[in-house]
């Protein structure tokens, strides 16, 4: 089964370029907290969505302060799930649908 991960930023509806993103879960490389100043951001790294072998696609999740480890656990649990259609919502900010109760925002850089 091909699993996919869905993300959207806060624009509602998602009707403009770069408002929403679907990535193949198999392209997920790693994630970890980043220096946000108050411990409220975790970044996911994927192989390039543009198939560019010299760059990466990143998704930055903003969450409650100090909850990076909890968010990573929740994201991993979501990615390990096996929905019939393979469609996994990690962070759909436009619809306030998140795989973790601690996530509040989502941004991504597609390359």
């Amino acid at each position: 089964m091909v699993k996919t991960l869905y993300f959207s930023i806060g624009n509602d509806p998602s009707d403009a370029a770069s408002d929403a993103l679907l990535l193949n879960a198999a392209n997920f490389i790693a994630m970890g907290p980043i220096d946000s100043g108050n411990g409220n951001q975790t970044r996911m790294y994927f192989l390039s969505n543009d198939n560019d072998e010299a760059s990466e696609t990143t998704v930055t999740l903003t969450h409650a302060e100090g909850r990076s480890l909890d968010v990573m656990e929740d994201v991993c649990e979501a990615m390990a799930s096996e929905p019939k259609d393979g469609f996994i919502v990690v962070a759909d900010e436009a619809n306030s649908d998140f795989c973790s109760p601690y996530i509040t925002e989502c941004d991504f850089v597609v390359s």
Partner: protein
Amino acid sequence: MRDKYLYFGVGAAASESFTDQTAQAVTLNTSNFDDPTPDGENFIANGGLKVTITSGAGTTWGSHYGSPVDGAVVEIHPNALTYHATSGAITVATEGADAVYGWTKSATGTENDWVVTQLKPYLSGNGYVYNSRYLRGMNFQTSTKTELHFQGKSGDMGATDDVDTITISHGDDKHKEFMQGLTDIIADDKAVSGMVVIADDMRGVVMPHDDASIASVA
């Protein structure tokens, strides 16, 4: 075989000691704690830090703590702690203000010793989850260190190949045991799902059946 998500807590817990405090509050600094120190008033309430205080003569404790003897190290309940959103000042509610979880300092400054300890990762490099799919290999580095090589987070491949390296410190000549223990986890589709902690220096946790061989991770 399904992907496994392997967590490595790379950074040891930051900690800062404050001895002989004369105030009911302390402020972390970047020389003795991680730089930058965490901001955000909910950081402690969300489990990011813990505060311990050594009971001393003249200190007064809320009912939650019982009657600690002098010299006992007591963890302050988060309900009694406030964390200034920008200055980072950590204040303990007095026992008068919070009869359950409060603590009132001794009038004698030398009786008030604090330690603030990081409990969760919040900085780049504190910890990473890697997809087992991108484990390129493991190699013996020294008799007490094994390197894990993963596809780099930068996404670079081919001519600009980029590798992220995690180094596991373990018992002497335990590299094979570690390698086999890790591959057992990666191959186990029945018992392993979601994020699995391989080694976490911050919490002193290592993968379940290999605690005798892993010492640290970097």
